């Protein structure tokens, strides 16, 4: 009841705020120093898994933007989704920016992780070319190896170097927390493999995408009240040798153990490589869009159970899309063909060590530049004790505004 009341009050607040923002933005002129913009996106999905029950799902994410004068800017995104028999409400990000110079922006608050290019730039459903997101980039896609957002402060900017461009971001944040077992129950004389099998056999049924993100040895990125005095430090550099191509590398180092515990000195380090390439091709009579993001996450090995194993995880995705925009036929030019391969490899001796490989084939029909109907077929291979294959059909209708 309390939760329902909270959701009702929050909805009321959003509606009131949105109404005010719509009125304000409809009245915005060049001369005003305060300007609002209500933006965002919504979607409805229909999913049918092989041997599963088909279901609709839906979500709505209003984005509220407020520019105050020449230097101050506030941006926030809410997330309303129908999940688990109720409405889930979240604050995706809320960040205040101050423009220090032409090349330096200073931001504080909860901000999209600059090292997670997919989430920072491509996650809105009217931008993402497939109805769901790749492995590793968010809790919505199984076990995350990267934070969706950071809570802290960042400096970011861009500057041209002749015909090329360099992009940078550095941040300090609460950082991730290492998930640990409350009580390490173990059997004397047990080998690591026997222990792994015992824990897996005793583990509760997985939910959602087949994963339990709170399993020992994984990271919890929703660290809104830090568990230690050490902060996470991260940075990303992007290079655009020409406008159509961006190559980025990023890293983050953080202490992930709780202060004064025997795990206090454990560190996580992650490296990220990303690539984006978009180009109109006369020969192909259309637009090519290539994306990739690869993550390597290492967490220090503890001397004590249950984390006394080499804790290294990998995830990544590569995506290719083609849309024949230069063809005269109005039906064909609005079609887009998408292929994505993504994978997630978790440590072999971890409690949760499921390895996932997935291929997705998609066809989109663009109703407008900001609205599409997407159809996708996924084939997922899950390797745990034995190899299993799952197929999934998803369709999505989305609108960005």
């Amino acid at each position: 009841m309390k939760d329902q009341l909270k959701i009702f009050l929050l909805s009321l607040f959003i509606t009131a705020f949105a109404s005010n923002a719509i009125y304000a933005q409809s009245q915005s002129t060049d001369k005003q120093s305060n300007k609002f913009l209500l933006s965002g996106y919504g979607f409805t999905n229909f999913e049918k898994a092989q041997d599963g029950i088909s279901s609709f799902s839906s979500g709505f994410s209003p984005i509220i933007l407020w520019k105050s004068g020449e230097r101050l800017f506030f941006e926030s995104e809410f997330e309303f989704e129908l999940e688990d028999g109720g409405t889930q409400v979240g604050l995706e990000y809320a960040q205040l920016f101050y423009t220090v110079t032409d090349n330096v922006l200073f931001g504080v608050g909860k901000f999209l992780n600059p090292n997670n290019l997919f989430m920072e730039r491509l996650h809105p459903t009217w931008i993402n070319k497939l109805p769901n997101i790749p492995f590793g980039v968010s809790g919505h896609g199984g076990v995350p190896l990267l934070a969706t957002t950071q809570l802290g402060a960042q400096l970011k900017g861009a500057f041209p170097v002749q015909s090329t461009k360099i992009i940078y971001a550095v941040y300090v944040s609460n950082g991730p927390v290492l998930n640990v077992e409350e009580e390490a129950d173990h059997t004397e004389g047990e080998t690591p493999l026997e222990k792994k099998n015992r824990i897996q056999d005793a583990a509760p049924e997985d939910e959602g995408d087949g994963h339990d993100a709170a399993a020992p040895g994984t990271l919890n990125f929703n660290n809104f009240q830090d568990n230690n005095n050490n902060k996470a430090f991260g940075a990303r550099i992007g290079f655009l040798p020409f406008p159509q191509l961006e190559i980025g590398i990023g890293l983050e180092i953080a202490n992930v153990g709780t202060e004064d515990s025997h795990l206090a000195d454990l560190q996580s380090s992650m490296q990220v490589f990303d690539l984006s390439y978009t180009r109109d091709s006369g020969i192909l009579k259309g637009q090519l869009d290539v994306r990739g993001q690869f993550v390597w996450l290492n967490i220090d090995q503890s001397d004590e159970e249950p984390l006394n194993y080499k804790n290294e995880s990998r995830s990544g995705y590569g995506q290719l899309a083609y849309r024949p925009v230069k063809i005269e036929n109005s039906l064909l030019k609005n079609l887009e063909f998408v292929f994505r391969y993504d994978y997630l490899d978790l440590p072999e001796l971890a409690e949760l060590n499921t390895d996932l490989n997935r291929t997705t084939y998609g066809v989109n029909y663009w109703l407008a530049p900001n609205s599409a109907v997407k159809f996708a077929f996924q084939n997922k291979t899950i390797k745990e004790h034995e190899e299993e294959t799952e197929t999934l059909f998803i369709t999505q209708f989305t609108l960005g505004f």
Partner: protein
Amino acid sequence: MNDKTKRYVNGSALFIGGMLIFLVLSIIGCAPTVPQEQKTGAMLWGENCNRCHNIRTPSEFNDGQWEVAMTHMRTRGNLTANESKKILEFLKIAN
């Protein structure tokens, strides 16, 4: 090398190798670009917006709304101050 390692190495090598080949071919196939300072707002609009999403038509927002949207895109899309300014000027004329 166990199955898992082999699968990881093969998958990673396939993707990174494929990406690198694509990258090299793209670089070879591209004509030299105009220096940033000489680009017009319309050129920058096409180059930058299209890198993440479909281009939104200038008539979708009024001048004040575009000013807020462009500030948002400066923080999100890492536009330089000059790019942001030129694109905004173009959108205000074109809407």
